């Protein structure tokens, strides 16, 4: 199937009648995912959005339930966002990040209803990356600019149109509703050519990285690596796979709500015990945790690297702490055995 770029606003308007449509919209000099009221608001074809798609499924602050105790008794209200949604224009790396997060929010031990309800009700329509940025390293972490693993539909930009590739039945159902024209052989050739032309130049060598992290917890290299890190949460909050959270009660007297907030391993409050003890006392332990979590613990737990190579942390770090350089330094260092 194929859809002309000039028909996209119309197509989105039709979807808006039935779904909450989330798409990149312009905010200052970047884009963010927002629910759109009109198809014309969607800004497609720019690079990655400033904030990753995770916030649409796992919001930065989420009210899990609210409660009140009155003379009539206790009342509990647990809202559930079960609206039918289309996430339109997501990049393959962001879509893949949700496949990784599925491991965390849906496993043998835990099923998170808030996240899973949104996941089940959202159709993921992605746009492949014809021009990967210099900071993109998706091909080094088992993905690529046209990776369909997290998508229901993949759109391939062929200039004036998008060639539509159906990935799942969910995607097929949405495309059938839209009644799109069939793609000609020439269109398909153009799509194949676009894929061929998209080259991810940046490569990060992860060979032996996991083996090194398995034994280098006490390697003095961590002393050096974290030194310029400011300990802010920019990298973790802009990361599509960082998912640590903290749960707090916002309450006054007998009424309040329980809220789940993003947490960040960069912060001093992270893993601070009620006793006052913190196993991660300094920036060194906290930054080590960030690397370990993505490239060791996530691999141990789910057999996947917890990074999709979107490059947001590289572009946004206030001190140019580049994860590619950090990984290279770790690989190059002399491994120390745990003691």
């Amino acid at each position, binding site marked *: 199937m194929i859809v002309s770029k000039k028909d996209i606003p119309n197509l989105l308007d039709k979807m808006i009648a039935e779904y909450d449509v989330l798409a990149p919209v312009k905010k200052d000099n970047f884009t963010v995912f927002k629910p759109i009221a009109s198809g014309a608001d969607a800004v497609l074809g720019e690079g990655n959005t*400033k904030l990753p798609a995770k916030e649409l499924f796992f919001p*930065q602050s989420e009210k899990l339930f609210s409660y009140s105790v009155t003379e009539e008794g206790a009342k509990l209200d647990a809202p559930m966002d079960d609206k039918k949604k289309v996430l339109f224009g997501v990049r393959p790396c962001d879509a893949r990040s949700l496949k990784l997060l599925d491991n965390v929010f849906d496993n043998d031990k835990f099923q998170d209803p808030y996240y899973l309800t949104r996941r089940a009700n959202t159709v993921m329509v992605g746009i492949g990356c014809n021009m990967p*940025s210099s900071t993109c390293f998706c091909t080094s972490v088992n993905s690529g600019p046209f990776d369909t693993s997290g998508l229901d539909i993949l759109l391939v930009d062929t200039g004036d149109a998008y060639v539509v590739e159906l990935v799942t039945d969910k995607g097929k159902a949405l495309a059938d509703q839209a009644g799109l024209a069939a793609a000609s052989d020439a269109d398909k050739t153009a799509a194949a050519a676009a894929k061929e032309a998209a080259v991810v130049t940046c490569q990060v060598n992860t060979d032996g990285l996991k083996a090194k992290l398995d034994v280098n917890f006490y390697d003095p290299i961590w002393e*050096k690596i974290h030194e310029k890190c*400011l300990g802010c949460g*920019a990298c973790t909050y802009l990361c599509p796979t960082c998912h640590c959270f903290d749960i707090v009660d916002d309450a006054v007297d007998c009424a309040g709500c329980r809220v789940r907030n993003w947490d960040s391993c960069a912060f001093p409050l992270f893993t601070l015990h009620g006793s006052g003890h913190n196993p991660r006392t300094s920036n060194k332990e906290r930054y080590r945790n960030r690397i370990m979590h993505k490239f060791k613990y996530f691999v141990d737990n789910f057999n996947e690297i917890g990074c999709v190579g979107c490059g947001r942390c*590289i572009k946004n770090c206030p*001190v140019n702490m580049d994860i590619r350089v950090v990984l290279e330094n770790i690989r190059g260092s002399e491994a120390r055995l745990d003691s």
Partner: protein
Amino acid sequence: MQAIAAQVKEAAKKLLEDKKVDLVVGFAEGSLPLRGTPLFARTPEEADQLTWNRGCENNLANFLRKREGKVAVVAKGCDVRSIVALTKENQIDRDNLYIIGVPCDGMIDRKKIGKLLGGKEVLAVEDQGDTIVLKGNGFSETAKVADLLHNSCIDCRYGNPVVYDALIGELMPEKAEEDFAEIKEFEAKTTAERRAFLAEEFSKCIRCYACRNACPMCYCTECFVDCSQPEWIGKSAADVQDNILFQAVRVFHGAGRCADCGACERACPMGINLRLLTRKLVKDVKVLFNAEAGVSMDDKAALATFTADDPEPFLVKE
């Protein structure tokens, strides 16, 4: 710039070779175009990576508090102002700090480049002095450096370090008094307009605290936002009022101490106009007390001293 970079390297290597210092804090070439990155050199070999360019935008005073041993720092005008302010607050021992001062006429704001190029990615740059060539996939554009500088650098009148042990490069000519035009414009708004502006601006805040952590003057052992007992401020970023409260406290805490280096605004990944608030306080301190933070080793910080004839326009009078 290249000549300065070579001299910085030379000076740092010599200090380390002669064992005059144990550590040199400076900038290395970053991993992205126009991006310097903080470097901690402990050997002459490590000092070989030192450089100087239009992307050395971080305030390195932030890395100098409570250091053990002898430390040297490669410092621009604004870094030195913060060093002076921190020395007065006993966070830096001036006797153990060697300042390699570098006069600075401004660092380049990559956000302005993004705007100029409509988001096209810069892959390489060529510094030609007053102009800079920005190159990317299928384009090459020449721009005036003056048009790309951070606003804090355009407003800065202290590009020349006010204190130093060695000076590299040539002193910059004096600049005219700043006029605080954008602050006056902000002040002229009605309360409702200001409130609306702040609500819009701080709806962008994701509470990553990059502004706080990039600021050399933010060094409380426990920041009030990190305190959970009592919880002074809501921990979620969903409440814009809490975001504004965080900034209000941060900015007031910096009053009379803030060197207006713009590190907070540079660090903000969401592009929030943070300097509007910090600079409003810079202006107030200047107007009320005729004081500027970190411009002299001798005077006391404006809000750390008291005289009987201090102005009190903020007090409600009978």
